[in-house]
């Protein structure tokens, strides 16, 4: 297990380097000179030069990369072109709300998706199955923003049930909870479908597996058979696939944050890109990728916990 974990970690390292490299080159290829932007439109040539010097932009590329890595290592991603705030600080402020939103969406969508998938698999071919699968395929086909807009229109505006204008505060306050419901419903809404489909497939596979027949032959009741022998095993592939789908969720999060004015990294990223705030854009992209890598790492480890074949080898 420890070895497996290390292996996974080792695998993550080139990926990590890739992310950082891409982040670095992002800043290299943007059509704008960071020094000029930093200096402002009226700055004189020597001011720009001074800033170039300060930022190390005159050094050869590999040295710049080293410098960049060193700064990164110290948690320095530069400052926003727009308002001079340290990128790390902005990221620090926005990462919480993003995590909050993601967790809140996964919190309900994964259990529900798994439940739906399991029910559909168990009653394969029945009306229940068809109904659930119809919902799921609709779920994977619907644009996030459509769900979001419908939520805002109906639940927020027409019926005035819930707020939709950003974060209401920390999650332990009533306001915080009320404010997160619609975004979490929206973001989770696009996740239920995929999870249900994956679960159904995996559980159907498992239900026809030999060991499930063995479990039935032992005289176990159906609940235990499904729970311990079909679903438990099905979770292994489902977890992996969920890990892969996290990217999908991330995309949804960016849209959801934008629609609901949620002060998260996704919205920050979009804003930074639209305002050509390259350091900020770079920071958000690095952070989002890192988050994704971490989640996948966690999923891999969880996978190992669930699967003794991996855990014990």
């Amino acid at each position, binding site marked *: 297990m420890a070895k497996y974990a290390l292996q996974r970690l080792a*695998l993550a390292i*080139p*990926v990590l380097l*890739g*992310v950082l490299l*891409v982040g670095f080159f*992002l800043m290299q*290829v*943007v*059509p704008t000179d960071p020094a000029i932007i930093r200096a402002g439109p009226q700055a004189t040539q020597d001011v720009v030069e001074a800033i170039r010097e300060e930022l190390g932009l005159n050094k050869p590329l590999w040295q710049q990369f080293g410098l960049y890595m060193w700064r990164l290592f110290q948690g320095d991603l530069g400052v926003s072109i727009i308002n001079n705030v340290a990128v790390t600080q902005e990221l620090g402020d926005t990462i919480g709300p993003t995590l909050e939103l993601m967790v809140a969406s996964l919190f309900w969508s994964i259990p529900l998706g798994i439940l739906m998938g399991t029910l559909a698999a168990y009653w394969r071919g029945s009306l229940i199955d068809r109904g659930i699968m119809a919902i799921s*395929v*609709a779920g*994977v*086909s*619907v*644009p*996030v*923003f*459509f769900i979001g*807009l419908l939520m*805002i*229109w109906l639940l927020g*505006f027409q019926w005035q049930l819930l707020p939709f204008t950003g974060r209401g505060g920390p999650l332990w306050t009533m306001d915080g909870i009320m404010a997160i419901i619609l975004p979490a419903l929206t973001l989770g809404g696009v996740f239920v479908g995929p999870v249900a*489909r*994956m679960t159904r*497939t995996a559980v*159907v*596979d498992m239900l026809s597996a030999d060991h499930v027949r063995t479990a039935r032959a032992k005289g176990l009741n159906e609940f235990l058979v499904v729970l311990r022998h079909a679903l438990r095993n099905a979770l292994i592939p489902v977890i992996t*696939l969920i890990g*892969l789908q*996290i*990217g*999908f969720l*991330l*995309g*949804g999060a*960016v*849209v959801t944050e*934008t*629609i609901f004015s949620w002060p998260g990294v996704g919205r920050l*990223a*979009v804003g*930074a*890109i*639209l305002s050509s705030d*390259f350091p900020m*854009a*770079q920071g*958000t*992209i690095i952070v*989002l*990728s890192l988050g*994704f*890598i971490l989640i*996948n790492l966690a999923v891999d480890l969880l996978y190992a916990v669930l699967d003794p074949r991996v855990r014990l080898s």
Partner: protein
Amino acid sequence: MSATASAGPVTAPRRPSAFRMLMKDTGAAIALVFVVLIVLAAVFAPWLAPKDPYETDLMSIMSPPSADYWFGTDGQGRDIFARTLYGLQVTLFMGLTSLIIGGVLGALVGFLAAYYKRLDGLLMRFMDILLSFPAILFGLALAAIFGPGLTSVIIALSIATIPLMARIVRGAAVVVMGLDYIEAARAVGMTDKRIMLRHLAPNCLSPIFVFATLRLGQVILLGSALSFLGLGAQPPVAELGAMASQGRNFLFIAPHISVVPSIAIFAVVLAFNVLGDALRDALDPRLRI
């Protein structure tokens, strides 16, 4: 091994073609017809559209669907029906282009990785790295580099498709590579190229096909989301995501402006997904993801 394997029929009834199996599934048949209609509608948008999609009618701003404007007009008094037709064109173009670019490259990588085991580790590790960036991040990064626009979106989606296709193809190809007929082909002295083209690739087509259909839906969703965020197609281009994005400001007074293009995206993606599911069931039930 048991003796189970020979239960195969002496004269099995000819396996029904995938197309027949598709048509047996009502949902899939409808989806197929729908997809064909959508493609036709997109291709013939200039002839089908009753109005110029860019013509602004300042006398009827945000008017609800009517006999004159079937889907109503948008905030600039443009015919949403016409714009939706053109939007389908843009959306499908975006989806297909990125699918083809990413798919071809990905399939190439997948085949090479499966065939040349020595390349496998390297290529797939690289694919893993690509896979570590969710598509949306490619979208963000490319928009950051080249500025928002359809081209950025297409490149981003192509790149994001490469590792997925590579994995699918490699997965399928590795299974086929393990089959004896590949070994037989090698034993007979065939060249690598011949084996790949004649024995390997044709037997990996089903998963490629299925994946492509399903991926097209995903790509369209992603692309329209990027446009919705303002990172993709730029106004006044009639792109469904961008249209929905513009309309959301008037959600409470003229919901149809957002809802119509959203539903159009939904319908297109749904059709591709239903079709993809049915294709998968028909071609290769083991491919369920």
